[in-house]
């Protein structure tokens, strides 16, 4: 009884059946094992290291693109590493020097002259013309940004975006000041009237000229005014400072006067924080401020930079995708081609970069993509940024092998003038002497 009951729940296995089953399983396993290498070969994944200098909203937007890439591409996987921009170029050089360069990186247009040695010339790589191999075509990119990617006749950069400064304004404070929130100022006279009105009628800070007022931001604010007056930082041969003239003086005097004569703000304050707290009427800041302004819940608008002097001008730069120099043992020719194709893919999806990162895609089909054009980012801010870029208002920073040191020689003196501890004349004289010292080695 007990045995029969047991047999109802289990199937007795004869020795012959057991042997047959085992033999069959072994055969299947053997065939399977024989097939494994070819299956693995089909499934082999190329992993490309992709290092950027993005942080905050930019980093989140790039992560979104890379996640999409890794979902849609089975054969190639991007390994994204993002960090602070201040150390980025040094890390890139160190990585290239030690033979561990990322397969894809980022480079500002303004840095091509001092970074190109760490980059692969895309049309003359050891794997041939990578642009042709990946199908990257010049007419598909914003021309000015594309043209900026060449140094000494060789192309190193594939443009990703354009980014620049513009005017963010608080619509509620505009109303309280008796200003029309749908008509932000465009001329210098309108701008000054608006700032004075905000100051006197709301009691809040009227204007901040330079994001969080870090020394490099104050230098950019001065450069923006200086370039708008037709100035140039260095002589055409790049060997001497050329900014200590009437144009440089007028720009710095105007910047300093905003704080010390007109009282639109105070030295040492952070425009980002003031604007996010609803305590600032107008702020000059980059397109990357969009997510912060949105998250702060401020009723804000965005407009072009006013025309302060002869020509409306804004500070701007571009991010570009690059292939850092690779050792053959780290990256075969196929890997270089895969990196170029990944660059093309990232640009094809760069409408995401516009929507979530707030940058203007340099890849024209992405710039015209419906999802970007319909987005709030485009309608509030990016359309205006694109207008400034298309009108030629954008001015790139100094492109020079010693640009970082030239900038560092100018910044503290501009900041001291802004803080009211140096006269504009003294500040420019000291900056000029220091820049010349840097340039003469």
């Amino acid at each position, binding site marked *: 009884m007990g045995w029969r009951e047991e047999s109802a729940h289990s199937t007795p296995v004869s020795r012959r059946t057991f042997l047959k089953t085992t033999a069959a399983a072994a055969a299947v396993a053997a065939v399977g094992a024989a097939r494994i290498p070819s299956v693995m070969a089909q499934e082999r994944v190329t992993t490309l290291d992709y290092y950027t200098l993005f942080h905050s909203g930019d980093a989140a937007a790039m992560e979104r693109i890379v996640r999409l890439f890794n979902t849609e591409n089975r054969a190639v996987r991007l390994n994204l590493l993002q960090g602070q921009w201040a150390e980025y170029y*040094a890390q890139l*050089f160190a990585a290239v020097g030690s033979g561990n360069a990322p397969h894809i990186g980022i480079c500002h247009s303004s840095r091509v002259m001092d970074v190109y040695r*760490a980059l692969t010339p895309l049309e003359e790589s050891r794997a041939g013309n990578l642009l042709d191999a990946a199908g990257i075509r010049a007419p598909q990119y914003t021309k000015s940004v594309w043209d900026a990617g060449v140094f000494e006749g060789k192309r190193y950069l594939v443009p990703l975006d354009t980014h620049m400064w513009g005017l963010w304004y608080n619509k509620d404070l505009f109303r309280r000041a008796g200003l029309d929130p749908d008509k932000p100022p465009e001329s210098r006279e309108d701008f000054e009237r608006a700032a004075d009105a905000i100051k006197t009628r709301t009691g809040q800070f009227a204007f901040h000229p330079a994001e969080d007022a870090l020394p490099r931001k104050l230098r950019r604010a001065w450069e923006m005014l200086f370039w708008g007056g037709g100035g140039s930082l260095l002589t055409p041969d790049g060997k001497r400072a050329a900014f200590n003239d009437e144009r440089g003086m007028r720009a710095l005097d105007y910047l300093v006067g905003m704080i010390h004569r007109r009282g639109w703000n*105070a030295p*040492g304050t*952070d425009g980002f924080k003031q604007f996010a*707290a609803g305590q600032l009427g107008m702020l000059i800041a980059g397109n990357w401020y969009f997510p912060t302004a949105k998250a702060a819940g401020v009723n804000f608008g965005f407009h072009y930079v006013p025309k302060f002097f002869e020509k409306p001008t804004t500070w701007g730069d571009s991010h570009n995708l690059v292939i850092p120099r690779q050792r053959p043992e780290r990256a075969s020719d196929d890997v270089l081609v895969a990196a170029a194709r990944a660059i093309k893919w990232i640009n094809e999806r760069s409408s995401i970069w516009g929507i979530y990162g707030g940058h203007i895609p340099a890849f024209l089909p992405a710039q015209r993509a419906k999802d970007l054009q319909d987005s709030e980012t485009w309608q509030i801010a990016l359309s205006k940024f694109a207008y400034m870029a298309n009108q030629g208002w954008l001015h790139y920073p100094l492109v020079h092998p010693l640009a970082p040191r030239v900038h560092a020689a100018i910044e*503290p003196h501009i*900041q001291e003038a802004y803080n009211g*501890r140096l006269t504009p004349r003294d500040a420019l004289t000291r900056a000029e002497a220091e820049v010349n010292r840097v340039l003469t080695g």
Partner: protein
Amino acid sequence: MRRRYGRIVEIALFILPFAAFWILFRLGPVLYGFFISLYRWDPLGDAKFIGARNYLNLARDPRFWNALVNTLEFAAIAIPLIVGIGLVLALFIFAGRKRRVTTWLEAGFFFPYLLTVSVVGLIWRWLLDPDFGIVLIALRDMGIDPPVFLNEPRWAIPAIALATAWWLAGYRMLLFRAALEDIPDEFYEAARIDGASGALVFFSIVLPLLRPAILFALVLTTISGFIVFGQVLIMTAGGPGRASEVLALYLYRFGFEYLEMGQAAAVGMVLFLIILGMTLVSFRWLGFESSL
């Protein structure tokens, strides 16, 4: 003779593990840094030997001298502040060691030491923010018109030194507290019987017996004081102007922003020599018998 030889081998074997790591990770980088400082160093491999030119460039650069003066100013304020506050806190905790509340206070005083430098820098930048900082708001509420500490050349370094003291004094407190525990009670009893005042006990018994701990704290704090970097970068970025640009920040900028590694290595060697000199002075001043 053989026995003596065996003894030397035995000692060498005991030292070997530490010595190997010390040479690899301490002495090696210092020598390599000196090597780099003699070159126009290119991380991509095109280095060119230029002898002492990086050092001559430093000597000619007013920015370097400004950074050196700023570093000395920071060290002059921060080192006594950190060691002094640590000592006062240790005495305070030691005096009330039988009360339970002092345990909590001790933990509270030590807590900032557990934070990273970036957190410390951000906390103090927020505290001293001209628009939203609690410190400035509180001072204004008290009727004081405070300077914008981090944007005033006179105040930037003292403000950073204060933040650094808040961060590091707790660890010195623990060192002194442990040393205080080591002083036998009989010494205090004998002094009391002889009618010594509190000040006399402190200067004649406590302070001399704390000498090894003071030496250790001084050497440690001198090193921290001269290589100050993170809190400066975060709180002022060396500003306003260059009022708080210290040597380590100068080094960082040449190395990591301007990619001039040879020049940066020369600054590193100068810093190394300054710290070595200060450490030897501390030994000389407090006596070589002070144990570390």
